[in-house]
């Protein structure tokens, strides 16, 4: 029995209560525990990566109850990739946070660990009600992290964030109910074999349930028109939290990939490729609106938020094409945009802290400490975020363009993708020029950096290095991602891994 699969869930689930009980009053101890846990998570994710890299799908039947009756965890290339990304991002973000922001409120580290538990659980579970539970775990932890440190604007945004997500959770349950009411199962693999057999008269319930569930995932993924929560949330969340949230939108994207290829994909009979006609237009609008927001942004945090929306649009365009090639491109872009989005928030925060009174507003203000360093970091991050060469954003963009070539409407997709890139370039250029160039001509000085921020800079450096790494190793990476995408599309393999190889012939029920 291989228990490593559940370690990404159990480890933070144990670490958080330990932090609560043992390290509640000792911030140093809490930091050590928290970092240790994150490093261990990274190690586990790497180990799992090697485990699944030869293409096997490992399952874990909780409570030793055979699926579909018990809950099952599934580690395949895709889920492990997400775990790895989460662990890497978490470690960088944590480094940034322990430079001081973790002390602005209570229980940062415990909430952080719980958040990781929720995210990892969402990536691993093969049961869509259990997915709901993990969504709630990651959401409620995110509520806490979102308002960490308090403040008028932040708590206000917090209320909005919570309210929207509670509506999302409500919708999730309704959708799950509709699907269960006709499919009679909660296991994703089992659902996949039942969907094509569902009676014509039940299709309306099934499909509207499935599409409402898609809407829920799209709320998480910040797709227009259910993206409204994102700008306020990200712009007002503490920087490390906003950076960590870069993975939260990907949870939504992951769920779309997982469920709508597995259960509503090629083999779903009349419900085949159910998500595609809805997803693609929405994703294109999201892309345009996001990058328009980048151009319109008045604060750096706002710019980063809209860049995240835009990148989600781009990502979901690639997903919505629902081909192995487009999925591979989407996964590459997913890795890239998570790192690029996260680092922008961290940079925005360092800038903001150095300009008391002006914060991250795109206004001209006197020079501040470490201007050149941050300008350099911003320049690189902007290159990544706008998809300029030579960083990973460019390769991601090329991959998506390449994958969109065979779609129904390549001209539209291409022109939108490229035009929005231009919007992003202009927007980022404007921001950088105002914040870092214009300000050098301004008389006066802001006080020196308030505290040591070596770790913050290391965190930023790590994330940027991640983008560089994605670029340098784009070859082997895309090969791996191609295999990952193939595996996701090879739904029989998944179903057999979960339910055994007899189900496809005879079936359990």
């Amino acid at each position: 029995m291989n228990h490593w699969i559940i370690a990404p869930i159990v480890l933070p689930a144990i670490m958080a209560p330990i932090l609560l009980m043992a390290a509640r009053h000792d911030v140093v101890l809490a930091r050590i525990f928290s970092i240790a846990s994150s490093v261990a998570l990274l190690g586990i994710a790497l180990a799992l990566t090697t485990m699944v890299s030869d293409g096997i799908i490992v399952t874990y039947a909780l409570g030793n109850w055979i699926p579909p009756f018990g809950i099952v965890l599934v580690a395949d290339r895709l889920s492990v990739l997400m775990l790895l990304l989460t662990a890497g991002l978490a470690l960088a973000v944590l480094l940034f946070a322990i430079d001081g922001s973790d002390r602005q409120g209570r229980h940062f580290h415990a909430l952080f660990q719980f958040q990781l538990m929720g995210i990892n659980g969402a990536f691993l579970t093969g049961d869509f009600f259990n997915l709901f539970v993990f969504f709630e775990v990651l959401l409620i932890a995110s509520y806490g992290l979102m308002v960490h440190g308090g403040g008028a604007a932040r708590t206000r945004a917090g209320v909005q964030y919570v309210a929207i997500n509670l509506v999302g959770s409500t919708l999730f349950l309704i959708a799950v109910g509709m699907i269960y009411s006709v499919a009679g199962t909660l296991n994703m693999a089992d659902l996949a074999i039942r969907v094509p057999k569902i009676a014509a008269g039940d299709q309306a319930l099934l499909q509207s349930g499935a599409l409402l569930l898609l809407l829920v995932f799209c709320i998480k993924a910040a797709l227009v028109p259910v993206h409204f929560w994102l700008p306020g949330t990200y712009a007002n969340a503490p920087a490390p939290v906003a950076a960590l949230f870069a993975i939260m939108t990907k949870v939504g994207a992951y769920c779309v990939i997982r469920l709508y290829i597995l259960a509503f994909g090629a083999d779903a009979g009349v419900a085949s490729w159910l998500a595609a006609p809805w997803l693609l237009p929405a994703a294109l609008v999201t892309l345009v609106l996001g990058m328009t927001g980048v151009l319109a942004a008045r604060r750096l945090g706002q710019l980063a938020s809209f860049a995240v929306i835009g990148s989600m649009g781009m990502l979901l365009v690639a997903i919505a094409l629902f081909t192995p090639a487009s999925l591979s491109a989407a996964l590459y872009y997913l890795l890239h945009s998570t790192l690029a989005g996260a680092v922008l928030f961290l940079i925005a925060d360092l800038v903001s802290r150095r300009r008391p009174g002006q914060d991250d507003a795109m206004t001209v203000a006197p020079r501040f400490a470490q201007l050149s360093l941050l300008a350099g970091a911003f320049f690189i991050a902007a290159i990544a975020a706008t998809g300029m060469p030579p960083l990973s954003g460019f390769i991601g963009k090329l991959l998506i363009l390449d994958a969109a070539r065979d779609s129904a409407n390549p001209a539209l997709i291409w022109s939108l993708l490229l035009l929005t890139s231009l919007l992003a370039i202009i927007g980022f250029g404007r921001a950088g020029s105002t914040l870092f160039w214009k300000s050098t001509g301004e008389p006066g000085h802001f006080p020196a950096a308030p505290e040591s921020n070596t770790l913050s800079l290391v965190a930023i450096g790590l994330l940027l290095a991640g983008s560089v790494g994605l670029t340098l190793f784009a070859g082997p990476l895309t090969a791996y991602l191609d295999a990952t995408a193939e595996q996701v599309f090879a739904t029989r393999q998944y179903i057999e891994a979960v339910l055994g190889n007899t189900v496809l012939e005879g079936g359990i029920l």
Partner: protein
Amino acid sequence: MEFLLSSAIGLLTAAGVYLILRARTYPVVLGLALLSYATNLFLFATGRLVLDRPPVISALANGYTDPLPQALVLTAIVISFGMTAVIVVMALRSYLENGSDHVDGETHSEDRS
């Protein structure tokens, strides 16, 4: 019976939606509470309506209702309880911070959407 339950779910949903679209945090909280009743009943109803056949194994029982939706609803009730508690306290904190319980934190405002 099915109609009564369905219409009740519909009404609770409508009332909940109407309230979450109000401008103050308190009605939003109430609306969310109504919505969670609606969803819990809805999820419960996926097990279909069955009289006096509780899923407790007994020699005397003449049948059982679907236990799974009940377990799911239980989980959902607990989770929505936690969520309600959080949004109530968050609304309170926001009120203390902003001096207003407007959902957008404004001290005086009309509709803004």
